[in-house]
């Protein structure tokens, strides 16, 4: 299985552990991710706040490069990238004017946009293309006894995703169950983490992160699993400030791909697990591993 791959800026910066775990895990499952040539920033929420047409051109350049690269679906692990690229596809479909603007812009570099590359999230690929049975077969070190709170965040499931439910998504829950983990019922799974407000207006942003962490702890989770680099950062990197304001809520937050890697027997140091502010405890001694 071959997919085009759009990592996004975060996966080369603060969220590098996501890429460090995503690539080996996908390779392990026979999925080849081919990074787009000379991709640019998707624009995230910030660019759209300033100039809608430029934001559309920016995102469309990536879609055009993906089309040129071949008839593969485009996989993007970052929630903001996933939302923006899908949103741009919708905008270009809905507005003739925007389509004309974008084609003119792309034309200066000899690119065109036809709109035929699906933009997909790794969760979608893992559950619907690879399949939970295949994932289960690869597990050599089941996460038995590990209580995991599945946290999806906002922008993957809302408003454009078609692969899961906007309010009660379950793909990550099922994936975690396939790894042998104990999935904690976590009703806040799609509640906002505070996004960039944790940095710009801490009083408002940090409180949202705090609520998530506290609830995960209250429900007895050992670790929170996430699929978004900004969620991971917010839930992981502000514990000092959170403790000072409202009391300690220490609980590690890792990427689902890191947990998958552990279950597949990939060493922790090859999965970027050393990059967490709040480290995850090593797994309890493995029970007799299932024959591979």
């Amino acid at each position, binding site marked *: 299985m071959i997919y085009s791959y759009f990592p996004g800026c975060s996966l080369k910066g603060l969220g590098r552990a996501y890429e460090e775990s995503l690539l080996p895990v996908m390779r392990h499952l026979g999925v080849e991710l081919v990074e787009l040539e000379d991709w*640019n920033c998707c624009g995230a929420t910030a660019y759209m706040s300033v100039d809608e047409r430029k934001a559309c051109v920016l995102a469309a350049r990536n879609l055009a490069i993906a089309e040129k690269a071949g008839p593969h679906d485009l996989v993007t692990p970052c929630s903001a990238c996933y939302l923006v690229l899908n949103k741009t596809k919708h905008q270009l479909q809905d507005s003739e004017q925007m389509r004309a603007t974008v084609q003119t812009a792309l034309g200066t570099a000899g690119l065109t946009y036809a709109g035929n590359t699906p933009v997909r999230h790794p969760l979608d690929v893992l559950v619907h293309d690879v399949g939970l049975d295949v994932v289960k077969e690869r597990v050599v070190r089941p996460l038995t006894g590990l209580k995991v709170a599945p946290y999806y965040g906002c922008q993957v499931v809302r408003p454009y995703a078609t692969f899961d439910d906007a309010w009660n998504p379950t793909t990550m829950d099922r994936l975690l169950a396939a790894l042998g983990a104990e999935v904690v019922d976590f009703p806040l799974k799609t509640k*906002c983490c505070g996004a960039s407000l944790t940095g710009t207006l801490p009083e408002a942003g940090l409180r*949202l992160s705090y609520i998530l962490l506290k609830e995960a702890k209250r429900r007895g989770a050992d670790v929170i699993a996430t699929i978004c680099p900004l969620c991971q950062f917010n839930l992981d990197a502000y514990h000092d400030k959170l403790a000072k304001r409202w009391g300690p809520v220490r609980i590690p937050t890792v990427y689902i791909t890191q947990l998958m890697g552990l279950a597949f027997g990939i060493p922790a140091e090859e999965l970027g697990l050393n990059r967490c502010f709040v480290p995850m405890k090593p797994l309890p001694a493995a029970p007799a591993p299932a024959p591979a």
Partner: protein
Amino acid sequence: MQADLRPGAPTKVRRTIKYESERVKGFGREVMAVPGCDQLVRCIQCGTCSGTCPLSVYMDHSPRQIMALVRADFKDEVLRSNSIWLCASCYACTVECPREIRITDIMYALKQRAIKERMYPKRFPIPVLAREFTNMVSKKGRITETLLVMRLFMKANLLAVLSSWRQGIGLVRTGRFVLRQERIEHSAELAAMLATTDSQAEPAPKTNQEAA
């Protein structure tokens, strides 16, 4: 007027009399003319958006109030409010709205308008971040988060540098503090692409006479 965001600050209920003279006639129609914002006309003021919004408690006007104020042409009050900048684009309201109004997209249209008309609170960090982000992407093609945050702190909040030193050390320790600017190979090509949108005329907003 900006809400008091300090911890423990009392939540005040403000009752303000609005005057006809404060209206900028046609503003509501201009916003509804932005692609994706046309459904605003269907708003029944049920308040589901405000109830769903995780940040409405910090806003000086709740999302429902913003929708009403836009429709009633209170341009200054809307564009100067902190509400539009507190919207973190979680799209909860958009998915939940029984009238299928794309509230998040309306917030974007309002942000764009506020930036264009420079009507946001001075040194308010959120629009500063949006501008710094946009500048970096337009020049380099990619974002290097640590460099972006440092620029934000310098422009909007020098004190934040001091209170974040522990986090900085943590980032260095975990190998996530990146000082090398990420950039694309064809940044000139990208700049030329973005520039083409400047030369194209914007759809003319309806004039006051037309709207009235």
